C-alpha cells in the first residue's frame, strides 16, 4: 500500500489543515500583532529568498574571521616552538635525543599546534552564532533544501558542528527523532570537513596551488557538502533501511539573545579543548612513532652528517604501500602520511613536518619544503586534499560512530564506503586534470 500512496496526500492534508486554521483565525483574532524586534529580524533572516544568501554570507564571514584573527596567534605559537627547539637542541649533546626533541616532538607537535588558534576562533564564532539564536534559524532556513535532499532539517546543526569536529557533530544527532534519519545523518557527517583537515589543506594547497590555495581550501568544504548530499540521496534510494521520507521538522525558535561572554567562552573552550587533548595524546603518540620510523635504523639514515630518509623504516613501509596509491599520483611519503592520518588527520601534517627533517625553529617552512620536494603537482595535490577530506574519519570518530549507532555493521559500512569514495574521487580529479592538460 505504501508504494501506491506516496507522500502527496500527507503534505496536501497538512496544507489543508493550515488553510482551515487561516480561515478561522481572522474571525476570532483581532488586534494587529505588534512587530517585535525579534519578529523583524526573523522576517529578514527566515525570508524565503534572503535567508540562504544571508546564511552563506554569515558563514563566509565566520571563516574570514577565523583565519584573519587567528594568524598573529599562530605566529606566536610558531615563535614559541622555535625558541623551544633552539634551546633544547643547543642544550643537549646527545644527537639522538636532540633530534628526537627538536625534529620529532617540537617539530611535529609545533606543526600541529599552530592550528590551535584557527580552531579556537572557529569554535568561538560558532558559539556566538549559536548563543545568539541564529543557528536554530539557519537550520530552519536549510530545512527546505535538506528535506528535498532526503535529509532531516534537524540534520543541519550536526552537519554544521561537523565543520568544527565530527565527534560533537555525530553526538548532536541525538536530537533527531527517527532512528533512520539519525543513522543516515551519522553516516554522512564525516564528510563535513572538520577543523583537523584544515591544516592539511593549508599545507598542501599552500605548497602546490599557489595563488589558488584559498580557492582550493574552500572547494574542499564545498566538495564535502556536495558528497554528503549525494551520499544521503544515494543511501536513501538504495538501502532499504532508509527508504521513506524524513519525518516532518518542527523547531521551536529560541528568542534572540545577546551572547554573554562567559557562556560563549565556555562553549568555545569545551569544544576547543578536545583538540588540545587530542594533540596531547593521540597526535603526540603518532608523531613519536613517525619520528622513530623515519630516524631509524639510525646509522643507515644518518650517514656522514647527511640525512638519508630513503633508508629509514618509514620509507621501507611507505614503499610497500605505495603501489596502492600510485594510480592517484601519491608517492610513498603521501601514502605514509595518509596511513598515519587515520589516527588523527592532523598527523598528516605532523608526518610531513617530521619527514622533511625540519627543525622546530621554522615550523612555517613545511610549506616551502613540501613545494620544493616536488612530490605533488597541483593536480595530485588537489587529489591528495580530496582524499584527506573523504577517506576515513579519524579513530576517535569511528569510535563515536560505533557508540551512537550501536552497530558494527554501520561503523564498518562508513569506513568502507568512505575509503572507496575517496579513491574514486581522487582518481577522478587526477583523470579530469589529465584530460584538461594538467599533469
Amino acid at each position, binding site marked *: *500500500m*505504501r508504494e*501506491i*500512496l*506516496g*507522500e502527496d*496526500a*500527507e503534505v*496536501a*492534508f497538512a496544507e*489543508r*489543515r*493550515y488553510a*482551515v*486554521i*487561516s480561515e*478561522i*483565525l481572522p*474571525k*476570532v*483574532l*483581532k*488586534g*494587529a*500583532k*505588534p512587530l517585535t524586534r525579534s519578529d523583524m529580524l526573523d522576517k529578514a533572516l527566515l525570508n524565503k529568498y534572503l535567508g540562504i544568501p544571508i546564511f552563506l554570507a554569515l558563514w563566509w564571514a565566520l571563516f574570514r574571521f577565523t583565519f584573519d584573527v587567528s594568524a598573529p596567534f599562530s605566529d606566536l605559537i610558531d615563535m614559541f616552538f622555535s625558541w623551544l627547539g633552539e634551546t633544547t637542541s643547543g642544550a643537549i649533546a646527545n644527537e639522538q635525543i636532540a633530534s628526537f626533541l627538536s625534529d620529532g616532538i617540537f617539530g611535529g607537535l609545533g606543526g600541529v599546534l599552530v592550528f590551535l588558534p584557527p580552531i579556537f576562533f572557529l569554535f568561538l564564532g560558532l558559539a556566538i552564532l549559536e548563543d545568539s539564536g541564529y543557528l536554530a534559524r539557519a537550520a530552519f532556513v536549510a530545512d527546505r533544501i535538506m528535506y528535498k535532499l532526503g535529509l532531516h532539517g534537524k540534520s543541519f546543526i550536526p552537519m554544521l558542528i561537523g565543520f568544527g569536529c565530527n565527534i560533537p557533530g555525530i553526538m548532536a544527532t541525538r536530537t533527531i*527523532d*527517527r532512528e533512520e534519519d539519525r543513522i543516515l545523518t551519522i553516516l554522512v557527517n564525516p564528510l563535513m570537513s572538520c577543523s583537523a583537515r584544515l591544516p592539511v589543506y593549508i599545507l598542501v594547497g599552500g605548497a602546490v596551488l599557489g595563488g589558488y590555495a584559498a580557492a582550493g581550501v574552500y572547494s574542499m568544504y564545498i566538495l564535502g557538502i556536495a558528497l554528503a548530499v549525494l551520499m544521503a540521496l544515494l543511501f536513501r534510494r538504495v538501502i532499504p533501511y532508509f527508504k521513506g521520507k524524513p*519525518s*516532518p521538522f*518542527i523547531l*521551536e525558535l529560541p528568542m534572540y539573545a545577546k551572547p554573554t561572554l562567559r557562556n560563549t567562552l565556555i562553549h568555545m573552550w569545551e569544544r576547543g579543548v578536545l583538540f588540545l587533548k587530542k594533540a596531547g595524546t593521540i597526535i603526540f603518540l603518532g608523531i613519536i612513532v613517525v619520528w622513530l620510523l623515519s630516524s631509524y635504523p639510525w646509522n643507515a639514515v644518518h650517514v656522514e652528517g647527511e640525512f638519508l630518509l630513503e633508508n629509514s623504516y618509514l620509507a621501507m613501509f611507505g614503499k610497500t604501500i605505495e603501489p596502492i596509491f600510485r594510480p592517484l599520483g601519491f608517492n610513498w611519503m603521501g601514502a605514509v602520511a595518509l596511513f598515519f592520518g587515520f589516527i588523527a588527520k592532523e598527523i598528516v601534517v605532523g608526518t610531513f613536518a617530521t619527514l622533511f627533517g625540519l627543525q622546530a625553529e621554522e615550523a612555517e617552512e613545511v610549506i616551502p619544503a613540501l613545494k620544493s620536494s616536488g612530490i605533488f603537482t597541483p593536480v595530485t595535490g588537489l587529489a591528495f586534499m580530496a582524499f584527506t577530506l573523504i577517506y576515513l574519519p579519524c579513530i576517535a570518530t569511528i569510535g563515536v560512530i560505533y557508540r551512537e549507532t550501536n552497530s558494527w555493521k554501520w561503523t564498518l559500512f562508513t569506513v568502507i564506503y568512505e575509503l572507496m569514495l575517496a579513491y574514486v574521487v581522487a582518481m577522478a580529479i587526477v583523470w579530469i586534470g589529465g584530460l584538461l592538460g594538467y599533469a
Partner: protein
Amino acid sequence: MAIRVAVIGNPNVGKTLIFNNLIGGKAHVGNWPGKTVEKKEGKCVHKGVEMKIIDLPGTYSLTANSIDELVARNYIVEEKPDVVIDIVDSSNLERNLYLTLQLLELEANIVIALNKFDIARDLGYEIDVNELSKLLGIPVVPTVATTKEGMEELKDVVLKAAREKRKKRKIEVSYGKKFDELILKIQRAIEKDEELSKKYPTRWLAIKVLEADEEALKIVDRSTCKHEIVNQLLEMKG
C-alpha cells in the same frame, strides 16, 4: 464512576502547570507500558464528582513519527477518555490549532483551555472566545495557569462536557473534492469491518491510511477491508 480526563497540548503552553493546578499537586508518576515516556496521573474532586486526570506528552501533532505522539494518540484512540482538555497557547493560535484539528478528527470530546490569555492580551491580541467556540463546535475557556485564573470554569466545563458525552462535531476539515471522495470511499470500506469501526474513528483512520501513516497501515493490513482499500487506491491512481 470517575470521569477520565486527558490533558494534551503543544510543548511550552503551560500544560504541566494546568495539570498540577487541576490535581492540586499530588501526581502519581510512572511510565507508559513498555515505553520510556513518563506518565503522570492525578485525581481531583469537583462538585462531588471525581475526575481522574492524565497528563499526555506534549506534542505538535499526532502522527506515528515519534513515541510521544504515538503514546498521546493511542491513549485517546484506545482508552477513549471522557474529556480531552486541549491546552492552547493564546499567543500562538495558528500553530496550536493544528493539534486541535487533529483531535477533532480523532472524534475526541474536546474542551479548549486558552492558556496564556494574559500574555496574548499584552501582545495586543483580542480573541473572540465565543466565536472560536462556535466555529470549532467545542467549549473554550480562557485561562492563565500561572495565576490559576479560569481553573474553576475549566472544571465546570469539563464536567458539563462529560455529561453531554460526544455529540457529532460540527467542523470537519474538507480536503478538497477529490480527497474527500476518496476518504469517504475508504471510510466505507473500513466500516465493513465491524470490529475495526467500533475501535477506531473511521474517517480518521481513512485519512491516516491516505497519509501513509505507519500505524494506520498496520491496523488496516490485519483487517478484511485491506483488499478493498487497495483496490480503491489503485483506482485512484488509474
